[in-house]
Every structure is written in structure tokens, then in C-alpha cells.
């Protein structure tokens, strides 16, 4: 059995799963493609949904930060009334060069999401879309985001997680087992939605909201799925990835994918589970759980509550 797994634990206890240098190269290559915009559909969709969540908060944010912005898919949906100034950071220069235009003034900073070069208590709002799933030390990155936020600042993020691309993962796994007698991981490990709450809490966020959205995209076949992932800059960069995919395995995986997951019209679906998270940096003005023993009514009194009379329903 060729099961290869080599998660390395560095001295600080942080995981080292992804080759960040390779990820930077992949994203740089993807951003400099002639037709790179044709692979932006997923980022555009998720970016607009993150912007929706920013609008849901009835506040104006003087200074905001977009972590791992790519070509900046969130800002184009925001107005100057909501965000007055915006800083964009990404690990690749070519993505920042092609950033989408937006209403508010922006500044670009070339930075790795795991090493934010900002002082504490700087930003009113931090957003992130479709980049956190490649971070090695996610707890550390979330803690840094919490630190650069001002008290009562908010972090709104979206990352790919859960059962994303399970069709691709299973097809490759089954094909490799039948053809080669074992399998190695081709789809990177994802954060489960149940873990996200813990991660945010440990990073020091309060008033957490975590929800999950499923986006299903239909492709002609497995080949187009993998081609589009590459064009998005989402190719696997885990250290334990296998560099080669035998042609026979590829052919077998195409057949399995189509048979197990194919639609009636011959296309195949690929599922993206997007985890949305909102967390606030604590501040005295925020609502806190009431103290023990401060209750003024008892649950036992619930049965004594009478139906509201018409005069009550004014």
C-alpha cells in the first residue's frame, strides 16, 4: 500500500502541510495566464457573498484589510460608505497587478497570510476569501488577524473546506486502488466546519458565526475539473502530494467519476463547500453572557404565560 503521509510538526507545534513557495508559484502562474479571468468564477461568487456579509453589518469601516486578496474579488462589491480605505495583501505580485477596480482608495502590500506585517489594533475590518485553506498554521494566522483588528473590529472570512471536491478525491482514490494497489492524497486536507468554531474561539474572537454554503459546478469531465483547478491556482501543493498521475489511473478515474457522480446529460459535478466565518474582537460594548444567579424569571413560569390579548398586539 503506497499510503504516503508526512505531516511535519515544527518546534512550535504548528503543522507544515503545504509548500508555500510552490503555492506562490502556482498562483503567480495562474494570474499571468492570458485568459486567467475565465477561471475566476468561483472567486467572484464567493467574493460577492463575503461582501454581502459586510453589508449586513450596519457600520462604516474607516480602514479594512483583505488577506490573500488575489485579484481582489470582494472590494469591487463594496461601496465607499461601507469601507473608506482598503489594504490588499497577497503572496503573488502578478495577482495584485491585475486587481479589480473598486470605489475606495486601495494600497497593495505583498505579504504572506501567515506573516502579516501590521501593528496590533490597526484595522476596523479584516476580510479574507478563498485563501485560508492553503495556510499551514491556521490557528496562528487567525490569531494574527485578531491582533491586527481594533477592539470591536470584525473579521469576515470565507474558505474552502468540509467535503469540497469529494467527487474528485473519491474517484482518484478508487482508481488508484484498483490500478495501483494503493493511493496517495491528491486533494488537500480541509478544515471541518465543526473545527472552525473552536479555531476562531482559540484565536480570541467572540460572537462567532459560522455557516456553510455549497456551490456545485458542472464540468464536461474530470479532465476539465482538474484543468480549471489549475487555472484557478488551486493545484495541490501539499508536501505529501504525489507528483505523477499515471495515464492509466487518469483514465480509470475519469470512468469512475462519470459512473459514480455523472449527471444525466453527461456532465459531472464538482462540489465546493464554502465555510463562512464572522468573528469579533472583544470590546466592553459587546453583549456578554449574563452572570449566574441574575435571572429574574424562572423557566417553570413559562406554562403560566397566557395567550397575548388583541390589545397587546398593537
Amino acid at each position, binding site marked *: 500500500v503506497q499510503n504516503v503521509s508526512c505531516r511535519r510538526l515544527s518546534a512550535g507545534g504548528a503543522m507544515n502541510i503545504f509548500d508555500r513557495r510552490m503555492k506562490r508559484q502556482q498562483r503567480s502562474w495562474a494570474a499571468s495566464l492570458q485568459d486567467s479571468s475565465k477561471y475566476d468564477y468561483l472567486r467572484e461568487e464567493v467574493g460577492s457573498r463575503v461582501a454581502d456579509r459586510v453589508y449586513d453589518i450596519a457600520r462604516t469601516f474607516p480602514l479594512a484589510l483583505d488577506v490573500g486578496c488575489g485579484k481582489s474579488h470582494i472590494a469591487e462589491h463594496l461601496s465607499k460608505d461601507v469601507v473608506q480605505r482598503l489594504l490588499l495583501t497577497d503572496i503573488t505580485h502578478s495577482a495584485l497587478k491585475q486587481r479589480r477596480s473598486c470605489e475606495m482608495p486601495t494600497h497593495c502590500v505583498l505579504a504572506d497570510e501567515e506573516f502579516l506585517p501590521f501593528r496590533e489594533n490597526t484595522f476596523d475590518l479584516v476580510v479574507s476569501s478563498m485563501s485560508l485553506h492553503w495556510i499551514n498554521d491556521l490557528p496562528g494566522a487567525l490569531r494574527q488577524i485578531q491582533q491586527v483588528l481594533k477592539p470591536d473590529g470584525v473579521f469576515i472570512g470565507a474558505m474552502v473546506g468540509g467535503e469540497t471536491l469529494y467527487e474528485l478525491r473519491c474517484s482518484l482514490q*478508487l482508481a488508484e486502488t484498483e*490500478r*495501483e494497489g494503493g493511493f496517495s492524497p491528491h486533494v488537500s486536507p480541509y478544515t471541518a466546519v465543526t473545527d472552525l468554531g473552536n479555531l476562531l474561539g482559540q484565536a480570541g474572537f467572540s460572537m462567532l458565526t459560522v455557516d456553510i454554503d455549497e456551490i456545485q459546478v458542472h464540468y464536461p469531465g474530470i479532465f476539465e475539473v482538474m484543468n480549471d483547478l489549475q487555472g484557478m491556482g488551486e493545484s495541490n501543493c501539499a508536501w505529501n502530494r504525489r507528483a505523477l498521475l499515471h495515464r492509466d489511473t487518469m483514465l*480509470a478515474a475519469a*470512468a469512475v467519476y462519470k*459512473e459514480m457522480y455523472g449527471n444525466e446529460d453527461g456532465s459531472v459535478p464538482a462540489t465546493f463547500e464554502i465555510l463562512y466565518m464572522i468573528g469579533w474582537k472583544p470590546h466592553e460594548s459587546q453583549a456578554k453572557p449574563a452572570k449566574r444567579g441574575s435571572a429574574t424569571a424562572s423557566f417553570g413560569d413559562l406554562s403560566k404565560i397566557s395567550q397575548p390579548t388583541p390589545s397587546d398586539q398593537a
Partner: protein
Amino acid sequence: MSGPNVWSRSRERIRRFPELFAQCAGEAAAYGKCVAATTTGRQELTKDLCAKEFEALKTCFTNAGHKLHFLFVKHSFCSIWTERH
């Protein structure tokens, strides 16, 4: 078309993968069903469990490749011939 070399040939093959695969739908479905059956039944998936179905698929795939290659060569020959005349 640039001069033949290993990389351009293999890239060409990879590029044509979807169209060749489309011509072997029956064989692909048979192989896929064989593998998929192990996910529901009690039989575990082991190496070469569906070798027969896979060989049929691979043969079909390779033949489709030869047919397309022949058509491509014939087409380029025809266009060269018409250019010269």
C-alpha cells in the same frame, strides 16, 4: 505545427484526452460500474479487481487515438497537397 518532440506529443495526447474518452462511453461505464459496486457491496476493492473492464477501456481509448491521429495526418497531407496545386 512545431517540430515533433516528446513534450509537444504528450501535451497533444493530454489535450485530446476528453474527446478520445468520449468515444469509449460504453467501456468507461462498464469499468466504472465494476469499481462503484465495491463501494456498496461487501467486496473490498483490490488491485486489478476490474482489470478485464479496464483493458477493454484502454483498448478502445488507444484505438480512438490512432483513428484520430490518422485523420489528422490525412487532413494535413490534403491541405499541403491543395496548397501546392
